[in-house]
């Protein structure tokens, strides 16, 4: 503890212990189930690429064919690599095409056939994981050569035109104007697609489709501008929705640097089945850990539907759960962009002091995590002048409490998708505040027992009380009852449930085996 808030170390330890108790049953569930998307991610690592003429990826066609013949419960790796040996097909995408045409039958191999399939699957998936490793080394080399942003927080800016070829010049312009991280928002609705679209895309709704090719194009464009600017510009996308594990895999293969990845967001805000989400999430986080990708969690979203003062402790609880799940999946603190937001109603008296208390609480609870600080959205009204002031205060709190990643707020939030000039004005706001008050955190020491300390203690106390309830009733029950963000999401409902299966005897997943192996 750096001790600006004088938090009780015993209470902090208790909060973590409760988060572990609440989260462990979910981890056990995740370890004993698989999903179609996890299996597709495995096949992507093994080299299945491309899509059929209707745009349905060959990984989907292949997994569907295997599931139709032998089910999902043992994983698809053994049946697929057994079929490759039997059919004498050397290329796994070719096998997918043949399977889609109905020319291949799958079985659950046993004995020597199983041993051979196992070896072949491990070897193919290892090649994919080595590619992810190479990408990680590449990033480390570029960061070393070009350097990180000179200041904290890193300035995170969103681009979202729907057309990757429009996004690219906008992203490059944003980087030149000072953005350290570019996030390409996905098309609305992509989270509920049970496949990853293919190729470069030029049409999206309020965002651009996340595809492997779009990832590659944007990363290459940012590499170009990084060299020009002498600073490594990071790229962000989304590992959320029904294809989390595949998004994480593609992000690792194409050297994305950050991914939105929240343990409960899909459940609460997209009505995705809770079990599907937790299984997918664990695999995706293991991939992120391997790829050195910083995850951004989505606690800010709770505050857009619930009251930011009354429900402040649910953010803390979710951060603690996200931390537990992330650590369990192998992510170190340096890759935990835990989220929180400036969403208190500005009409509430002393709202800025409350924001400072909440932001500082997150900072002190997670001293080594690059916290993701999210701007006001709920109380942005269309009064762009007031909005710009609110964003200024948001930036100030970010500077004073040492946030790691600052998502640039737009005064035109809730009005239009940001215009070129909106972005420029927003970046000017950030630059002014960081320039004028960047070091203010050093002088900012809330007095012992004062308003800010008391408020932080109260929120932590409420978080512990809620965690006690969740640990006793189980997390799935809490989610079903609407504890987070008011949405009620029972475990036996929601989208994507049909793509979940419990592990059967002999379940084999070469990717998980390799990802969980202790590094040599």
């Amino acid at each position, binding site marked *: 503890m750096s001790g600006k808030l004088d938090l009780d170390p015993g209470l902090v330890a208790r909060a973590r212990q409760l988060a572990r108790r609440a989260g462990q049953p979910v981890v056990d569930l995740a370890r004993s189930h698989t999903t179609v998307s996890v299996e597709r991610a495995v096949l992507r690592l093994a080299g299945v690429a491309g899509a059929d003429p209707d745009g349905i990826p060959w990984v989907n066609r292949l997994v569907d064919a295997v599931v139709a013949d032998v089910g999902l419960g043992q994983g698809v790796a053994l049946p697929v690599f057994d079929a490759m040996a039997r059919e004498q097909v050397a290329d796994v995408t070719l096998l997918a095409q043949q399977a889609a045409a109905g020319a291949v039958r799958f079985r659950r191999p046993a004995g020597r056939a199983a041993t051979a399939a196992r070896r072949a699957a491990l070897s193919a998936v290892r090649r994919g994981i080595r590619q992810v490793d190479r990408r990680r080394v590449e990033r480390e080399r570029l960061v070393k050569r070009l350097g990180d942003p000179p200041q904290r927080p890193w300035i995170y800016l969103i681009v979202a035109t729907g057309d990757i070829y429009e996004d690219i010049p906008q992203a490059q312009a944003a980087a030149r104007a000072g953005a350290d991280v570019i996030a390409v928002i996905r098309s*609305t609705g992509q989270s509920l697609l049970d496949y990853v679209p293919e190729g470069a895309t030029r049409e999206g709704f309020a965002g651009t489709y996340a595809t492997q090719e779009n990832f590659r194009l944007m990363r290459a464009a940012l590499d170009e501008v990084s060299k020009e600017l002498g600073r490594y510009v990071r790229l962000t996308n989304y590992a959320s929705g029904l294809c989390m594990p595949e998004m994480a895999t593609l992000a690792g293969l194409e050297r994305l640097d950050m991914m939105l990845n929240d343990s409960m967001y899909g459940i609460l805000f997209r009505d995705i089945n809770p079990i599907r989400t937790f299984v997918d999430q664990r695999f995706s986080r293991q991939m992120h850990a391997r790829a050195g990708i910083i995850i951004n969690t989505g606690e800010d979203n709770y505050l857009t539907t619930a009251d930011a003062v009354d429900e402040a402790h649910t953010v803390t609880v979710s951060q603690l759960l996200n931390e537990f799940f992330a650590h369990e999946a192998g992510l170190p603190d340096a890759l935990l962009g835990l989220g929180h937001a400036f969403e208190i109603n500005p009409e509430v008296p002393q709202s800025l002091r409350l924001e400072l208390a909440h932001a500082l609480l997150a900072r002190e609870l997670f001293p080594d995590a690059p916290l993701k600080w999210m701007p006001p959205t709920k109380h942005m009204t269309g009064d762009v002048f007031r909005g710009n002031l609110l964003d200024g205060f948001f930036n100030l709190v970010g500077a004073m409490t040492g946030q790691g990643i600052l998502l640039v707020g737009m005064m035109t939030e809730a009005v239009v998708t940001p*215009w070129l000039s909106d972005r420029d004005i927003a970046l000017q706001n950030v630059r002014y505040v960081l320039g004028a008050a960047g070091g203010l955190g050093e002088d900012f020491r809330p007095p012992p027992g004062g308003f800010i300390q008391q408020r932080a203690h109260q929120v932590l106390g409420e978080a512990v009380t809620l965690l006690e309830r969740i640990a006793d009733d189980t997390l799935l029950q809490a989610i079903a009852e609407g504890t987070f963000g008011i949405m009620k999401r029972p475990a036996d409902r929601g989208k994507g449930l049909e793509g979940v299966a419990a592990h059967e005897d002999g379940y084999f997943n070469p990717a998980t085996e390799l990802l969980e192996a202790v590094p040599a």
Partner: protein
Amino acid sequence: MSGPIVRPYGDTTGDGMVQMSFTLPVPHDKRAEGAALQLAAKMGMDPAMLVHAKPIGEGFTFFVVYGRVNHLVDLSQVEVVERDFPLLSAKEVNTAVKRGLRRKLSVVGACIGTDAHTVGIDAILNVKGIAGEKGLEYYRELKVTNLGAQVSVPELVEAARRERADAVLVSQVVTQRDAHLHNTREMSAAFREAMPAGRRPLLIVGGPRFDEKMTGELGVDRIFGRGTTPAEVASYLVHALITQKAKA
């Protein structure tokens, strides 16, 4: 109260002063500033003062212009949809439903199409409500089913049937490529197809970018725009489903 003819007000009655900001796709130089003034003049600003010009990005300049417009606003010619029903308290709504329907009034709400922005529908439906005003779930005599985000039109029709919906509330925030208009038309057409006129629930859409006058064109009974409160929606439900039917 001023007369039926007004002009914008800067600091003196009748001065006609407005401010405006915009970007032109030209690099910042003398010519760019002249171009900004030309636009202002064509928009009826005379005289126009260019108070700020700043290069943004490569080949773009941002301008702020203050100036006087010559246009007159005739208040007697203004067309708006005025609230044509009384605003009721939660208690009054509950009483009206109890007396008028003798059962709970069923409301089904959703964001349809690919729209994932539940902020609007949640503000109206969730107990939490908006700006201290409770949402429809708080009304004892209303039975609220909130289907949440990205609901397909067939799912919505099916839910409306299952819940015997008296009213269907649809929220649309995303407006790219007029998605909100397409989605609304698709929704109203589906209800027309699925249910006979007398049995169809009241169709209501809401969102910040709708024109409240477009009900006929979109095939819905009512459109609510920005700043609508749960009480307004509840009062309208009573007005349309109880008061008006009693008169008919």
